[in-house]
């Protein structure tokens, strides 16, 4: 200790002459830093109400609640997060995890109220002065809290698949499936979109947990066609997936297939258990497609005796006779059907109703009849020359291929149509051409431009890989036939526009841009319809119709109380819709066949 230790403290006196360093009016003068984690904002145009913010909030500060004027629609629950600032700890995990980037934070931090309940509010709905604040916490450019890219599906390369009908999609292995399943946030927005309302988040969780038996049970609760849907479902669920907003949607379809691929068929049958005791009621189902067999499965499990009449030699309907084997192998389909027949469903093959047995007979013999005949008749453009024998319809050709009939494979051909069926026939014929002649000469012409093709984008991509010559915006004008009656090709005009300003079909052609596409065969793949001739004139007259289709009530029942109808023939083409329809009519029939208990 020295004299300086006595004196030096007095240097503090120099501060006498300093200005205060505190900010005089911090409430007005001090904006939060650019990254400040202040009050929440939520962009109502982007928010989909998936509730992932609520899931991650470790404080339980977020509630998901309906908001006036925001209805639940596909892909948006209509709920919006309400935040309780009595609990919020400003960690911003809700912002980081937000699936759409709608939930953000402003750099505002001052909010004074005398009523504490006002600190519970719905950002974006309850208007606040910081709603338009430009600064505030930004999550880092790359979203880190979950992977955004889909696990790549192993597929056969074009060279490896082009000369055969071997399945292209290889399926995930367990590790890949777990990684893909891991990406799901279990919000459940997809369930409402799935026509069968499958328990998607739950079965994805089963994949994560590696509990495939549980997965199979979940699948069979809503869908006996998991092999089929796991491969060729239109997967509209993926369009409602929360993950699609800032990345790839979860590969829901492939995960479904993965589950069913993991469990042997005998185990599947064991897992879903035995049907209920026989009820003594008999149900006839016309058509062994997804709708008919789903209804058959449900009804058989409820104890009813079910007989399915199928005109073809094998079951599956359009999934077998319309979808090429490289997309849906027949053995996969067979496995689904085998589980259904294991429930006691009897399928009578090669029995064409209307020819081999009449509707009247079915009405007399059964307690209920389901008409699930699909859309097996191809539409024609009816352009000049389209009645030439070498102008064929895609559905007929595909059916012949499946049935193993010999087809006179043309060296060159033209397909009319831009839907999946057009792609199916083009790719199938390309394979046959390669097998027969060693080269592919298939031209596909579609009315629509590429941006508006009806086919799945992946179908177009794979068709191009498989050397299909796809020409968009070509309107068919005539099938060109020479003087000897030989088909030379298809004459098309350029389509200038296909829809008018109001999105209505109003094709405009440019006759100056005329092309003739060479082809020994022309295949029309523009549309399909149901062949309802099996009904017979009397029943046709008795039934009520609705714009060309049999009229049904919401449960699938027709105006004849013994007859239900389901699937493509009443709802348009879609596998998963057919499955959903099958359930619907099965439930309705079960109710009709079961004596109602008196209600008090």
């Amino acid at each position, binding site marked *: *200790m020295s004299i*300086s*230790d*006595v004196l*030096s*403290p007095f*240097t*503090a006196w120099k*501060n006498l002459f300093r200005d205060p*360093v505190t900010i005089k009016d911090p409430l007005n003068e001090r904006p*939060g*830093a*650019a*990254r*400040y*984690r202040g009050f929440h904002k939520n962009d109502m145009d982007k928010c989909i109400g998936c509730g*992932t913010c609520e*899931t*991650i909030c*470790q*404080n339980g500060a977020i509630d998901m609640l309906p908001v006036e004027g925001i209805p639940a629609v596909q892909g948006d629950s209509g709920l919006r997060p309400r935040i309780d600032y009595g609990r919020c*700890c*400003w*960690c*911003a*995990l809700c912002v980081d*995890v937000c699936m759409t980037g709608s939930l953000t934070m402003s750099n505002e931090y001052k909010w004074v109220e005398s009523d504490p309940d006002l600190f519970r509010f719905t950002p974006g709905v309850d208007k606040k002065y910081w709603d338009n604040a430009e600064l505030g*916490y*930004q*999550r*880092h450019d*790359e979203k*880190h*809290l*979950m*992977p955004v890219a889909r696990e790549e599906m192993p597929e056969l390369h074009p060279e490896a698949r082009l000369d055969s009908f071997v399945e292209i999609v290889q399926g995930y292995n367990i590790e890949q499936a777990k990684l893909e399943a*891991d*990406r*799901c*946030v*279990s919000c459940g927005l997809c369930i409402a979109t799935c026509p069968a309302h499958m328990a998607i988040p739950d079965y994805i*969780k089963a994949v*994560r947990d590696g509990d495939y038996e549980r997965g199979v049970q979940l699948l069979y609760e809503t869908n006996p066609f998991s092999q089929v849907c796991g491969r060729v479902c239109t997967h509209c669920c993926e369009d409602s997936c929360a993950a699609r907003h800032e990345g790839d949607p979860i590969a829901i379809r492939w995960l479904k297939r993965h589950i069913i691929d993991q469990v042997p068929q005998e185990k599947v049958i064991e897992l879903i258990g035995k049907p209920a005791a026989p009820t003594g009621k008999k149900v006839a189902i016309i058509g062994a497609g997804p709708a008919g067999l789903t209804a058959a499965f449900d009804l058989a499990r409820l104890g009813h005796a079910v007989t399915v009449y199928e005109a073809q030699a094998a079951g599956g309907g359009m999934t077998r006779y319309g979808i090429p084997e490289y997309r849906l192998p027949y053995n996969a389909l067979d496995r689904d059907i085998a589980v259904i027949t294991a429930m006691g469903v009897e399928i009578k093959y090669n029995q064409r109703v209307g020819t081999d047995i009449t509707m009247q007979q079915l009405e007399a013999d059964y307690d209920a009849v389901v008409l699930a005949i699909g859309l097996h008749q191809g539409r024609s453009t009816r352009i000049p020359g389209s009645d030439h024998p070498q102008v064929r319809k895609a559905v007929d050709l595909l059916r012949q291929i499946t049935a193993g009939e010999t087809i006179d494979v043309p060296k060159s051909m033209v397909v009319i149509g831009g839907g999946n069926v057009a792609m199916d026939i083009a790719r199938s014929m390309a394979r046959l051409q390669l097998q027969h002649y060693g080269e592919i000469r298939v031209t596909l012409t579609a009315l629509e431009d590429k941006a508006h093709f009806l086919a799945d984008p992946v179908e177009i991509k794979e068709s191009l890989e498989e050397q299909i010559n796809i020409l968009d915006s070509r309107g068919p004008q005539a099938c060109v036939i020479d003087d000897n009656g030989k088909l030379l090709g298809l004459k098309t005009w350029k389509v200038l526009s296909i829809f008018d300003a109001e999105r209505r079909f109003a094709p405009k052609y440019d006759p100056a841009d005329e092309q003739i596409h060479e082809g020994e065969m022309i295949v029309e793949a523009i549309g399909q319809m149901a062949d309802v001739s099996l009904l017979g004139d009397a029943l046709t007259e008795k039934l009520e119709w609705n714009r060309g289709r049999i009229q049904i009530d919401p449960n699938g029942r027709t105006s004849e109380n013994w007859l239900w109808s389901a699937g493509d023939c009443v709802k348009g083409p879609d596998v998963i819709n057919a499955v959903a329809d099958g359930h619907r009519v099965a439930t309705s029939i079960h109710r009709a066949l079961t004596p109602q208990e008196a209600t008090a």
Partner: protein
Amino acid sequence: MFELDRSQYPQKKADGTLDIDLTSGKYLKLWQGPQHPGITGNMAIELTVCGDEVVDATTHVGYLHRGFEKLMERRTFMQCFPIVCRICVPEPDFNEYCYAAAVEELAGLEIPELAHWIRTLILEMGRVNSYLMYLGGQAGAFGQGVIGQWTTYVRDLMLDRFEELTGARIYHMFIIPGGVRDNLPDGFAGRMEETLREIESVLADVDRVMFHNAVFKKRAVGVGVIDTAWLDSYGITGPNARAAGVAKDVRKDQPYLVYPELEFEAVTGKDSDIYTRADVRRRDLLLSLDLIRQILSRLPKTGAVMTKLPNVLHWKIPRGETYVRGECSRGEYGYYLVTDGSGYPRRVNVRGPSYTHSIALFERMVINANISDVAALLVSLHTYPPEIER
């Protein structure tokens, strides 16, 4: 009898309890805290005094128990992230770092280089804050209120830097499992340099007014000596150990983050009294300012700040256990994490240096101290009660 060995008074019975008669009128029970201004945070000391000499002391904690360790057992690994910082208010970042590092180790995650640098930067910034608060508290314990005003002012400048870097002033929630949340904002190094200079200028004043102050020296020199023999017995770490001449500094002993690449020596003292501990912390604070400069001049300018995580909503970590430590301003801070393969921690145990410093060690040191020195003694151990009771 006091002239000989004061630690022999009061005498103890064979079972170790005091051989005193509390009803004799010779002794007084005196409570200091939990709201006493000389107490660090929410704790209380139950003193038994004889005259103005402390003959027995019991620390009481629990005023701030929030059960974080238990709360974490029902939160997912990512959900634990926002709550760990709340275990220690003045220097929350060690919780974030130790927790994140433990999770990353058990989950097998490698974090990007840049994140290591930014984490180190954050930890040093937090150390500066913690020491500035301590200096004010230590001076305040001797009645020098002005020091606290100065250090709080410059601490506030550092909080501004925290705010612009992390988006928050106190609970930064920035060192996240997987990395850090963002890169430095534009112009950060320049503004940090201004802040560092202001801190240095204030520290020069503190040096003159606090450390070269006859009153402070009179009160602090030779008081509250920690015997080096106690270090292991009481688990003493950090400046408390370094002031006793043992260069215990995790940054050197078991280097983590980017410390191996930084140039520094552990700051030590030798007298192990209140003054030396304060001085060690002052010099350690200057070291931190230097480390911040080193980091800012050497860290990569660009690069990823976070590694790719699995979906954190159902992130599971295989069964395992680990311990991750760091050198915080008060000593060894560590997280013992046990996982069981589920999506939740099986057990998280937080080792805060205050745990041993403010209970076992303090209860021993305070015996025979003067009542007026109790607060200064406690502050000189630099303890934060929340990390005791977690």
